[in-house]
């Protein structure tokens, strides 16, 4: 874990208010794992004051990528960064996905911006010779992010693209695809979705790792700002930033 002043290599607008920032950082690129995150200082000033956490989206060579949509001031500033400007990055942070274990097919389940960590994970899954199926959902067509996904199934709440329904409905519809093989689910998205997914996985006895979110101050365990309830020990919270952000779905209350 380090703080790095890293130069922006490229700002890529994917459309629909979604941006990719390509950043040069050999150091982070060679250390970070899919599912880990970075805590980014978007401005040298006190506006905004706190760093902003982003999953690593992809890694190519010496470059790392983050994917985000413009929500508030922090992401607005980030979207305006241009080539050559440096940004102050703290990371790699947290624990990433476990994907080298014994399964054949990786099932990606992403809701909206929950797509962010998967391009990198999919790259690594392929290196590990896993099959990949991606279930991608959004509220409406413009929320569906398929960037870096493979073997894609789509759902939208309003039916504007793919199945009308949630991504967990979509998964349920295609449950036969998961039946014949050793599968592991990897997911990221809004809490409501993760909750539904957890239920689905428990019912169908499926392995599942989820990347969770929480408002954060430090991102590395010193502020205690990011508690998440453990299913095993109710005396003590886990910390999203240190113990997560990726958890086995069985280990946390969502």
């Amino acid at each position, binding site marked *: 874990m380090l703080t790095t002043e890293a130069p922006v290599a490229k700002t890529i607008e994917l459309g629909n208010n979604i941006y990719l920032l390509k950043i040069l950082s050999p150091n982070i690129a060679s250390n970070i794992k899919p599912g880990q995150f970075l805590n980014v200082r978007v401005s040298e000033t006190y506006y905004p*004051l*706190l760093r902003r956490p982003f999953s690593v989206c992809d890694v190519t060579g010496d470059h790392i990528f983050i994917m985000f949509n413009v929500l508030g001031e922090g992401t607005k500033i980030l979207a305006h960064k241009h080539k050559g400007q440096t940004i102050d990055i703290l990371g790699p942070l947290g624990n990433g996905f476990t994907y080298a274990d014994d399964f054949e097919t990786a099932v990606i389940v992403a809701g909206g911006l929950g797509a962010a960590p998967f391009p990198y994970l999919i790259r690594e899954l392929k290196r590990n010779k896993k099959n990949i199926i991606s279930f991608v959902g959004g509220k409406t067509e413009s929320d569906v992010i398929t960037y870096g996904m493979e073997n894609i199934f789509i759902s939208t709440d309003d039916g504007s693209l793919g199945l009308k329904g949630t991504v967990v409905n979509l998964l349920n519809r295609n449950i036969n695809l998961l039946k014949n093989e050793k599968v592991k689910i990897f997911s990221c998205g809004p809490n409501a979705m993760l909750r539904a997914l957890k239920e689905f996985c428990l019912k169908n006895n499926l392995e599942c790792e989820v990347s969770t979110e929480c*408002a954060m101050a430090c991102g590395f365990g*010193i502020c205690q700002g*990011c*508690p998440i309830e453990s299913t095993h020990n109710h005396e003590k919270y886990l910390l999203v930033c240190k113990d997560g952000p990726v958890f086995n779905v069985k280990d946390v209350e969502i």
Partner: protein
Amino acid sequence: MNKVDLSVSVGPLKLRNPILLASGTVGYGNEMSEHIDLNKIGGIVTKSLSLKPRKGNPPQRIVETPAGMLNAIGLANVGVEVFLKEKIPFLKKFDVPLICNIAASTIEEYIECTKILTEERSISAFEINVSCPNVKEGGLQFGNDISAVGKITAKVKAVTNKPLIIKLSPNVSYISDFAKVVKDEGGDAVSAINTLVGTSFNIFTRRPKIYNVTGGLSGPAIKPVALAKVLEINQRVPIPVIGIGGIMNWQDVIEFMIAGSSAIQLGTVNFINPKASEEILKGLEEYCIKYNVKKISELTGSLKLK
């Protein structure tokens, strides 16, 4: 070799430099040790410890505000026992003064914690948190009750001969009244300030953003208030003050020392720039050289009023 003498005294507590890391913003040191050389800083103040482990508040615990942040951690901590068993051994590897911050719901709990911890040789001093705005049980809001603060000071002092610092609440009419009772009851120093009570609402759900409803405001936003509190104590009560509140850089440290601080603590800045303490030490040294300050402790209370 240092050309400037950065050492300071906070009453009986001698520090190699005035830069302490504030309670709740450095955990128990391990994560910070990846960013800075703990052997270089003036000292570490632990997260508030209570007798038993505390789970703390449910999320959301953190909200950003203009030039500040609200937190309502609710004193989540491992408790005295685990602290001694699991955290102290790590901290012992470093040559850094350890100030143990204690929070409690009753006067008895303060005494009990101090009694247990005072046996541990590697603890240099105690900082008693009578001012956490984010816990509700215990009934008493010690920080706003002058006689409770006096009693805690006297009773804790009676069970330890380590330097005793009382961390004061800014959410009072006259903080110097509290500093005075600390002084009168034998406290060695005061820390000022803890966070200001604040809140924030989600205008769409109409709910408080923080689960605990209110939280403690920290960060640069509160710096002018913290400075005024330090000044107030400095002008009215002859007790050493550890200045805290929104310190982001070496300039801010000088400002707090001029206003009357013997040492200072860095809080929120650690989240944003975990290397801040080391950068600040460099800045302080350069300032002292440039302005011919031989001992940094000369700065304490060196303000000039008309």
